[in-house]
């Protein structure tokens, strides 16, 4: 019998892992988000995968682990699949690649970094609960206007906050910076 590792294509494993969709942001994959830190195929066919969680408390990590295991198990020659989440190095938003940023924008979520709008001018009325000028202003993902405010630091998931575009009057979400 041939050695299992000779049958496992490491590049194929990487493509399978990187192609797993984020369960909370199905438009982007964990590869686009830069969550794949290390990947190794042992001689006995065991695949070791190290992932970086975005937020430490992200409830999607268990689903991601399950989806990664399923995706890699489907490949020829793969034995056991071991997924480990690690905090060192810490994941930061600059790990999101260009495709991921564009997909997030298309999904209605302003990506972190990149083009940064000017600070909002004085004298504009704010909504009663607005927490004021955002420390990281974002252009609107729909109309590209810089005329946006952050309404809340907390959104539907730990990694997203709530914004509002004064130009097109559209609420949107932004991927948090750290």
């Amino acid at each position: 019998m041939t050695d299992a590792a000779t049958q496992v294509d490491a590049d194929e494993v990487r493509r399978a892992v990187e192609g797993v969709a984020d369960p909370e942001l199905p438009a982007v994959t964990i590869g686009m988000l830069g969550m794949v830190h290390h990947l190794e195929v042992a001689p006995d066919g065991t695949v070791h995968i190290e992932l970086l969680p975005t937020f430490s408390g992200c409830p999607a990590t268990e689903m991601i682990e399950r989806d990664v295991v399923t995706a890699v198990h489907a490949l020829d020659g793969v034995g056991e699949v071991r997924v480990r989440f690690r905090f060192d190095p810490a994941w930061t938003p600059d790990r999101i690649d260009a495709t991921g940023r564009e997909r997030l924008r298309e999904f209605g979520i302003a990506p972190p970094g990149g083009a940064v709008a000017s600070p909002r001018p004085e004298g504009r009325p704010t909504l009663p609960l607005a927490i004021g000028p955002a420390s990281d202003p974002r252009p609107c993902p729909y109309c590209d206007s810089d005329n946006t405010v952050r309404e809340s630091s907390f959104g539907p998931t730990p990694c997203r906050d709530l914004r509002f575009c004064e130009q097109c009057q559209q609420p949107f979400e932004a991927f948090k910076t750290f």
Partner: protein
Amino acid sequence: MSATDATTGHLPDLTTPRARLLLVLADDELVSGHRASHWTGVAPSLEEDLAFSTIAQDEINHADVWYQVLLGEDHTDVRAGVDALGLGREPDAYLHAIVCERPPTDFAFSLARHWAYDRFDVVRLAALAESSDAAIAAVARKLLHEERYHLEHADHWFGRLANGGDEPRQRLHDALARVLPEALGLFEPFEGEDAAVDAGLLPAPHAELRVRWAEIVGGMLDEAGLGDVLPAADATAPVEAAGGRLGRHSADFTDDVWPEMTALYRAHPGSRW
């Protein structure tokens, strides 16, 4: 049930200085998160409902991560181990400060505690980022990034109430006058703290963290004209809020948070969710 039940897998020795340090870190977060969750569905606005619910989720997951560090990378069943540590101990084995277990009371009280606690949490995490223990230092650095959002929320409301007119200002003042003396319980040493400090696991003792914290919160209180509520440098936690680090807790924990938090775990030992 005990933490050494057969359903939990092997648990490490919980009496070492490193284990006690990690229980202190995790238990503060777990109980703070549990109390934050009590605003879910009843906060004064939808935004605050989201804020406290998110903070609760963050803090409880931070506890989860600290428990994982305590279990170690080679633990055979991490989820069962984390549940055993978070939900399977008797009340007197929890090492959080008593201020964390107080009920939400009213929104001013919750905001005052949120501010006092998160200002403390950030000071302690900054110290732990330099821990001699690589796993502890890595987690502390990761959590520091995330705490920024809690701090921004807490500071925002501190400023908003302090400058919000007579009634909000008075209510913040009264809440701080209740919270800050009890918050001194956060800075009591745990059993084995000297050894943890000597080994560099905890780079600064809680007594030193208190000095750093008091400098920051004292400056903010002075600036807001609320400096009278800062406890004196030699003040200690009132007796009813002291001893949490040694496992002594009030009825707010033993008869309220603990039974609620552990009810499902105790009713269905070994369940997975």
